[in-house]
């Protein structure tokens, strides 16, 4: 890739950095307990929790750093942090 003038870039390349590998603990979402409030999505610093067609939420493990905010803040305790198998 040729160097851009003035150290500029268009968006997109950030996604090359798959921060999911940083994880020690992994959030596991239990849709049975989920009330679809969306707090997990709202408070995720990565912006990597996405809503599916049924209105449930799922983390994108490519980017989830496993910080655990979603699990901590879930009002229904529907997210559990499990140790990552490496």
């Amino acid at each position, binding site marked *: 890739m040729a160097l851009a*003038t*003035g150290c500029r*870039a268009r968006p997109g390349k950030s996604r090359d950095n798959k921060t999911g590998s940083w994880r020690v603990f992994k959030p596991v979402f239990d849709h049975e307990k989920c009330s679809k409030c969306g707090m997990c999505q709202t408070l995720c610093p990565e912006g990597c929790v996405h809503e599916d067609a049924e209105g449930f939420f799922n983390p994108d493990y490519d980017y989830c750093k496993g910080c655990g905010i979603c699990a901590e803040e879930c009002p229904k305790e529907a997210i559990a942090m499990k140790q990552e198998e490496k």
Partner: protein
Amino acid sequence: MLEITEGSHAVAEAVRLCRPQVVSAYPITPQTHIVEALADFVANGKLDAEYITVENELSALSACVGASAAGSRAYSATTSQGLMLMAEVVFNAAGMRLPIVMSIANRAMGAPLSIWNDMQDSISLRDAGWLHFYAEDNQEATDLHFLAFKVAEDPSVQLPVFVCFDGFILSHTYEPVDILTQEQADKFLPAFAPAEKLDAKDPISFGMYATPEYYLEFRYETNEAQKRAKDAIVKYGKEFGALFGRDYSAFIESYRLDDAETAIVAMGSMCGTIKDAIDEMRDDGMKVGLLRIRVFRPFPIEEVAKALTHVKRIAVLDKNVSLGSRGGATAIEVRDALYGSTIPVKGYILGLGGRDIRKKDIKEIVSLCEKGIGDQFYGLRKELI
């Protein structure tokens, strides 16, 4: 049309004709008349620009960075302490490849405080990545602004430019200057249309940081842009000449140098006085000539070396000093250009802090150079040392 006006006012007129959309500057002697004139143009509808009355020079150039990145032609002016307060942004603007043009009414650096002229200010920032143009008279100080914007904005260059002229000696002097008409200026300098800008339709990140995997290449590329600026200066300098009769394609000017045995090398307004002195020395049978450097960055290494191959000795006059070295910046550059040659190059630091430079001084320096005496401050008041 030739008219007699103050240097600062001629420069302000030129800037007005370049149609900057954003002017951001902070007053400082001896640049003040320029920014006052521009503020007056804006206040009276003669210049359709946003004039930002910033709180200091650092913000003056910072606002230009923002404006230029957002796609507007941006201009500032400063000198001396103001330039140094900007220093961080000076490097930044060049690294971000923003084609800002800034007038520098050259002035000494404190301490001790001095409002008077020398070139220590801009010369101290010679490594920042800006192109450096140095004017001999107000005609050049005026014309070089058009060239500056044109070269800066060339897609192959994209670098900011200092247009330097001696504070007071040029900025406050009334003399005849041919100022272009708006029609002429527009013909030479089209509207600023950068390929990239801050724009919601095409979101680009400007001024990202570079890790060691990239930084070296960015510096290399900025240096390459300096080299490409040489081609742009030749091309647009010629174009300016073809349109208006004043050709600025040369980085250097030779005055009675062809058969000279002693060459004086200098920049800026002292070159006028030097030319008068040379004429008188020539009348006395002395073979003296001048090599004037107009473009200091990119430094015309080959051109300088070529122009000086035939001389027996060289006296380089610097209105700046790289303290702790053998002399001034021009002398250091000239020695570098002549590396491997046996022609003696002697440097003379003079005129610092507004000390007047007279014809007799030039003659005395030539005489010192002929005796092989140099690499020194010239004109020191012995009684003070």
